[in-house]
């Protein structure tokens, strides 16, 4: 019983920290989205440079959301990481193949 109590105390302390991390992830996502839209709305930036900004913002935002909102940074998420990495591997193969077929 005693160990039960101490673990639930610990859990409570964790819970207090919880929302703040998620709000930080939200604000970060918001900022990355606004940067991406602003880069396009500005209009007069070099096209290649805009593309680089857009892809960078998207990748950072996805990592933020996967880590915090989908708990991938937490312990015991090896199989989720394997599943998503395997999916992303197939996606890269598909995108590269399709682009190679059509554009070259």
């Amino acid at each position, binding site marked *: 019983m005693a160990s039960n109590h101490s673990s639930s105390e610990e859990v409570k302390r964790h819970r207090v920290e919880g929302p703040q991390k998620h709000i930080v992830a*939200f604000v970060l996502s918001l900022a990355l*989205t606004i940067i991406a839209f602003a880069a396009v709305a500005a209009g007069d930036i070099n096209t290649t440079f805009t593309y680089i900004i857009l892809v960078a913002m998207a990748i950072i935002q996805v990592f933020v959301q996967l880590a915090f909102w989908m708990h991938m940074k937490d312990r015991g998420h090896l199989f989720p990481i394997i599943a*998503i990495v395997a999916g992303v591997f197939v996606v890269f193969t*598909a*995108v590269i193949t*399709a682009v190679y077929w*059509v554009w070259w």
Partner: protein
Amino acid sequence: MSAHQHAEGHLPHEPEKATLEGRNKILGFWIFLGAETVLFGTLFSAFIALRHQVLDGPHPSHLFELPMIFAATMILLTSSLMSVFAVQAMHNNKVKAMIGWLLVTILLGLAFLGLEITEFNTYVSEGHNMKTSAFSSSFYTLVGFHGAHVAFGVLWIGLLITQIFKKGLTVVTAPKIYLSAIYWHFIDVVWVFIFTVVYLMGKVG
């Protein structure tokens, strides 16, 4: 112990992972999300390859309106945060608060769907429909598939709320709530790539 019990009964910490069945559901769901990644990735690959083939139809840079896309993005992002709050309320065993956050999640999902339907309606009236060009077909397939996932999520979370009313929050219902939130975040992650690759890159040219 019994003096500390809640009306809903005593729940372990992180009830979604308390049983083997719950943990297996979470593992299976992640494998499903890996497959979903492939599904959306192949649709993206078709879109990226075909996005310049507009034929006589309108060009993406004339078609897309950034303010509307930005509004839809904000709605879905906020909705994702609401489902985080729902899971946190669940972890604190606050069932009413959890249902409240889930309802807000659903309402924002419906608002997103409403915007998307209006958007597609405008496009069709501007002569950009499913059969216009390779660009329009791949556009509607990709964005439409995402919209269908949002619609399914709204339906799923809606049904879960009615189940919570019937059965309460238990180690059986908790994994479902947790997974619906994970699903909802995944839909938002896919949308990040859609607004980047389809809309913003389409606007750039």
